[in-house]
């Protein structure tokens, strides 16, 4: 019977029989489902990936290197790195504070705070960008005051940093809240009783407990900060060599038919995504090892 090889686990208990677990589908069905999933994956994920890299190197490594070492390209890379270098630490601080407050304290408006944290997820990035233009633009609420004091936010670097920070701020907090809630605060209480100050408690007990969740949040936040296009394209003014981040620069190149250069920069961003995925995978691995340790006392409690 064709069933036999696929049914190996069941055969241990029912040799030769056609009995199978209620949740197990026949092999033909499993094959079909797997095929659909793989075909989808290949078409929408793998194929574009190959296309990006093959197009980037279509005219040789020479052209690729020239494209990424051009003045405007370097400026875009610098601006992107700088934006992430500001936005990620800001969101790290905010994420720690927010998740700490939400996980460890009871206060009024907690639900509202949690909903607000998700706001950037819900709002289209273009709208986020527009909000900043409406706030800080020359026609905006505080724009005239800012320009009379010679502060430029829109169509300048501060606007890019601001909108990127806004778009990426849920990432760290979202990762940390469930982790902190799961740990509870018994260990913090133990540290306090033993004489630790708030700072010592945070550094020696809280932080080590949430470190994997925190790193995970930082990596995702960083990936999003470097890749943000919608909000940045609205507030930056897209001035090549001045206010164009890497994603915006890719669009500029593409619109001026410099396909090889566009794909060269795109391949850099794609590499970042791949590195992020690998790092994320490694972290998920380490944190699940930690999690399984954590379950120990719980199961014991249950047994007792």
């Amino acid at each position, binding site marked *: 019977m064709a069933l036999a090889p696929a049914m190996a686990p069941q055969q241990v208990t029912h040799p030769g029989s056609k009995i199978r677990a209620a949740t197990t589908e026949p092999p033909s069905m499993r094959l079909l489902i797997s095929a659909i999933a793989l075909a989808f994956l290949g078409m929408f994920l793998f194929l574009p990936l190959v296309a990006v890299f093959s197009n980037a190197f279509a005219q040789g490594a020479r052209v690729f290197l020239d494209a990424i070492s051009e003045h405007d390209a370097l400026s875009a890379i610098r601006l992107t790195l700088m934006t992430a270098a500001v936005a990620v630490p800001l969101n790290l601080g905010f994420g720690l504070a927010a998740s700490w407050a939400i996980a460890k304290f009871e206060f009024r408006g907690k639900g509202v705070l949690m909903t607000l944290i998700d706001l950037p997820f819900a709002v289209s990035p273009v709208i986020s960008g527009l909000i900043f233009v409406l706030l800080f633009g020359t026609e905006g609420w505080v724009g005239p005051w800012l320009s009379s004091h010679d502060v430029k936010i829109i169509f300048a670097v501060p606007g890019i940093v601001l909108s990127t920070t806004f778009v990426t701020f849920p990432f760290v907090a979202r990762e940390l809240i469930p982790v902190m809630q799961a740990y509870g605060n018994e260990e913090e209480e133990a540290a306090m009783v033993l004489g630790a100050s708030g700072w010592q408690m945070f550094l020696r007990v809280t932080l080590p407990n949430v470190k994997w969740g925190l790193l995970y949040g930082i990596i995702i936040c960083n990936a999003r900060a470097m890749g943000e296009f919608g909000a940045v394209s609205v507030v930056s003014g897209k001035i090549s060599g001045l206010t164009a981040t890497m994603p915006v620069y890719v669009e500029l190149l593409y619109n001026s038919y410099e396909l090889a250069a566009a794909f060269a920069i795109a391949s850099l961003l794609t590499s970042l995504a791949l590195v992020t995925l690998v790092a994320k995978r490694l972290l998920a691995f380490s944190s699940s090892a930690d999690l399984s340790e954590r379950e120990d*006392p719980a199961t014991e409690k249950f047994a007792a």
Partner: protein
Amino acid sequence: MSIEVRNIRKSFGNFVALDDVSLKVETGELVALLGMSGSGKTTLLRIIAGLEAPDSGTVHFHGTDATEIKVRERRVGFVFQHYALFRHMSVFENVAFGLRVKPRASRPSKLDIARRVHELLKLVQLDSMATRLPSQLSGGQRQRVALARALAVEPSVLLLDEPFGALDAKVRAELRRWLRRLHDELHITSVFVTHDQEEALELADRVVVMNQGRVEQIGAPSEVYHHPATPFVYQFLGNVNLFHGRVEDGHVTIDGTPLGVGDATVQRNGGSKERATIYLRPHQLEIALSPGGGNEFRATVAHINSAGPKVKLDLITEWGGPVLAEIDHERFATLKLQRGHRVFARPKEKPRVFVYQI
């Protein structure tokens, strides 16, 4: 160092956790806070530790008001119910924590810390486990690490929240005796919370029985067991037979049948008819096949359980109520009791009668 709490009140929303609780623990004493879950015992312990602030009332350590003193300055050792060990630190680091976080001026040198930690680990018989992580220890070992960690800072009082709650019965009994010996060695003023009466009665110098945020009775284990002050304590400590009856002119009757408890000390609040609750422990009942003096009531044997140090008899009384009696095996053999036998049950000692006016 003595601990005294005065008129502590604490509510969580609408729930009153502690309602005017006062209590004194003498220096070197081992006191149990005994009660069911929700009786406020853990809240009281956390208030003594400073982990929770009372709504009103004060906590005194050695005669001085410590209510305003922050938890990290109270110098208490606290053992959490689920130990709350730092899971990312080794056993050694867990025990060393309290010493490492001391301000620089009073912090011992690395060498001294190591010496002290190993001393403590020897005390709790875990010196060979110093490099392990808490997740690699058994429940009983974790409990001892938690204790060593609490003792490391040389606390003036030791507070334990359900110290044996998460352990299985055998380990629990062992650890209990071990903790008693440890306490006799160190003489540190200790308070522990438990819902297990056996644990409280066996381990503590004095037992504080709590119910619904109030203290029902404070006393030595034998005192609270043999002379319960309130109906609650009677029911809570040990098995007990409960009878609802009436008092008429000093005689207790149930459903018109005289219980035959004779000269039971009945507190009379005037009036000739009163409702009464009578408590009799199973071992306070004597069983006989024939009547013998009138101080008895009739019953039928419904079930016999002879597996154990005593023989347990389930009796059904004339008025239909179930009664539990415990007799020793010799007596059981003499009587040759079987299911369905009709017997006479006689209280050996005066039962405790609580009287309410109708």
